[in-house]
C-alpha cells in the first residue's frame, strides 16, 4: 500500500474522530480491511495506534483533573483480564481459520446496535429541542447491580458501587477490544454513564486512561502470539490522524451536538451494513488460501 494512502486514511478518520470526539478505531479497522489489509493485521496494528491516540488524548483530561484513577484502576484490572482472554481467543480463531469472520461479525453486530441506538437518541434529542418543556428522565436508578458485594467508594465519580460492576464491564469490553481492534470507548463511555452512573465529565478521561493500558497489553500479546502488529503502519496512520483530528475538532465545533451524533450514527450504520452485506453476498471464489507459518 502506498504511504500517501495510509497517511490520507489516517487523516480522514482522524478528521471524523476529532469532529465527533470518538477514538476512531471502530472506523479505522474496517477501512483498513476494505483496503485489503488482512483483518488480523488491521486489528493488531490498530490497537497499537490507539495506544498513541489515547496517550495524546488523556494528557489534556489529566491536566483538567478529569481522570478518576480509582475507577481507572478497577477498569484496568478488568480490561487486562478481558483483553488477555481476547488475544487468546483471537489466536485460537486464527488457527481454525475463523478470525476474519468473527472480526466482521462483531463489527456488524456491535456497530449495528450502537449506530441504531445513537440514531434513535439523536432523533429524540432533535425532536426535544423542537418541543421545549419536555421532561427529562430519572438520572439515577437502582437495580440488581447495586446489590453486588465488594462495594468501593469512587470519590471523583461520586459513586459507592460494587467493584465487580466496572470490573466485569471492562473485562467484556477488553475481549471485544482484542477481537475488533478498537479501544472500546464507544461501548465503555455509554456504559460508564448509563450503567455505572458516572458523571460525564470524568468518563472520557477515565476511559482513555484505561484504554491506554488495555491496548498496550493487546499490542504486546499480539506481537508475541500472532506477530500481526505493524508499528510502521500504526505510526503512519497516527501521523495522519493527529493532523486530521485537529481539523476535525475545529469543524465539529461549528455543528450542533444532536446533528453531529446523528451523522456519526448514520456513518456507523453504513459501515455495519457494508460489512454485513459482504458476509452475505456470494464470494467470487469460494476457496481462499492463507500462508501458514
Amino acid at each position, binding site marked *: 500500500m502506498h504511504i500517501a494512502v495510509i497517511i490520507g486514511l489516517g487523516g480522514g478518520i482522524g478528521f471524523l474522530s476529532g469532529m465527533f470526539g470518538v477514538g476512531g478505531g471502530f472506523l479505522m479497522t474496517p477501512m483498513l480491511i476494505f483496503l485489503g489489509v488482512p483483518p488480523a493485521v488491521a486489528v493488531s496494528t490498530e490497537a*497499537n*495506534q490507539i*495506544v*498513541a*491516540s*489515547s*496517550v*495524546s*488524548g488523556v*494528557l*489534556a483530561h489529566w491536566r483538567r483533573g478529569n481522570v478518576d484513577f480509582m475507577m481507572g484502576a478497577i477498569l484496568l484490572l478488568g480490561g487486562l483480564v478481558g483483553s488477555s482472554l481476547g488475544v487468546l481467543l483471537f489466536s485460537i480463531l486464527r488457527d*481454525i*481459520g*475463523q478470525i476474519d*469472520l468473527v472480526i466482521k*461479525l462483531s463489527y456488524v453486530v456491535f456497530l449495528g446496535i450502537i449506530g441504531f441506538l445513537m440514531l434513535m437518541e439523536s432523533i429524540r434529542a432533535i425532536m426535544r429541542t423542537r418541543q421545549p418543556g419536555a421532561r427529562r428522565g430519572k438520572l439515577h436508578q437502582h437495580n440488581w447491580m447495586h446489590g453486588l458485594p465488594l462495594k468501593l467508594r469512587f470519590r471523583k465519580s461520586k459513586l459507592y458501587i460494587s467493584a465487580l460492576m466496572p470490573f466485569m464491564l471492562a473485562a467484556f469490553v477488553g475481549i471485544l477490544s482484542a477481537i475488533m481492534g478498537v479501544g472500546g470507548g464507544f461501548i465503555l463511555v455509554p456504559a460508564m454513564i448509563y450503567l455505572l452512573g458516572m458523571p460525564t465529565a470524568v468518563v472520557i478521561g477515565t476511559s482513555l486512561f484505561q484504554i*491506554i493500558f488495555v491496548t*498496550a497489553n493487546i*499490542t*504486546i*500479546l*499480539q*506481537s*508475541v502470539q500472532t*506477530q500481526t*502488529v505493524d*508499528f*510502521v503502519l*500504526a*505510526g503512519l496512520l*497516527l501521523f495522519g490522524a*493527529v493532523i486530521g483530528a*485537529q481539523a476535525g475538532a475545529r469543524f465539529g465545533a461549528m455543528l450542533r451536538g444532536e446533528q453531529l451524533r446523528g451523522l456519526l450514527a448514520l456513518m456507523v450504520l453504513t459501515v455495519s451494513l457494508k460489512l454485513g452485506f459482504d*458476509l*452475505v453476498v*456470494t*464470494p467470487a*471464489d*469460494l*476457496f*481462499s*488460501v*492463507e*500462508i*501458514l*507459518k
Partner: protein
Amino acid sequence: MMFRALSFICLLLSLAAPVYANTLVADLSLDEVAITTDFNGEDLLLFGAVEDALNDDIIVEFKGPEIALASRRKEQVSGIWVNRQTVTWKNAPSFYHIFSTRPLDEILKPDAQRRLAIGYQHIGLKSAGTSLSPADMVFWTEALDRNMRQKGLWRRHENAVTILKGVLFRAPVALPANILPGDYDVRVLHIRNGQLLAEDTTSISVAKKGLGAYIYTIAHDYSVFYGIFAVIFACGAGWLAAAAFRKT
C-alpha cells in the same frame, strides 16, 4: 588414486562426446534480489545459450521456497458465508512461475509433464493429516492454483521465452512485490518433440534488506521486545502529538 583415475576417464568420455550433444547454459541478470522497505517487485532477465534449437522449445520453471499453506472452502451457513473445510499443504512452493516458448500442454504431453515434474499437478503437493482421494486432490489443487494465480504467486507465461537463431534464448521475469525471502530455484529445459534434450539449473536468493529486514527479524525472533517497543513508540508518538497541538 582411484578417484583421480575415474575422473580422468570421465573427462575423456566427455571430450569424446559429439559437440552438438545437448548443452544448455542459463543465467539470470541478477544473482540476488533485495526486499527493501519500498520494494515494489523486481524485473529480471533469464537468458542463456542452447544448441541447435531452431524448431525446439524452452521451458523455464521458477520456483520459490516451500511453505505451508491452508486452503479453505466457504459454505453458506444461515445466510452467511463461512469457511467450512480446510486442507493444509505441507510443502507448496511460495512462488511457481513457468515460462515457455509455447503453451506447456502443446510442448509436453501430460505423462511427459509428470515425468519431468513440471506444473503444479506434478510437484508432489502433499496435504497434511488425512490424505485426499485422487478426485479431491485434483479439485483442491485446482482451487489452490486459482487462488495462488490470483495473488500473482503462481503463473504460466506461455510464449514468454524467445529463442534467437536457435542458440540464444531469453525470458523476462517479473517478480511481484509479495514474494517471500528465500532461495529461488530455476530449471531450464530444452525440449524437442516432447523429449528432454538438455537441462540446466541456476538459482537466485531473495533476502530482506535494510530497515525492513531488521524490523522483520525483531518482530519474529524477539517478539516480546518488538511488542514493548511498539508500545513505547506509540506512547512517545502520542505525547509528541499532544505537545505539538497543546493550546498555549
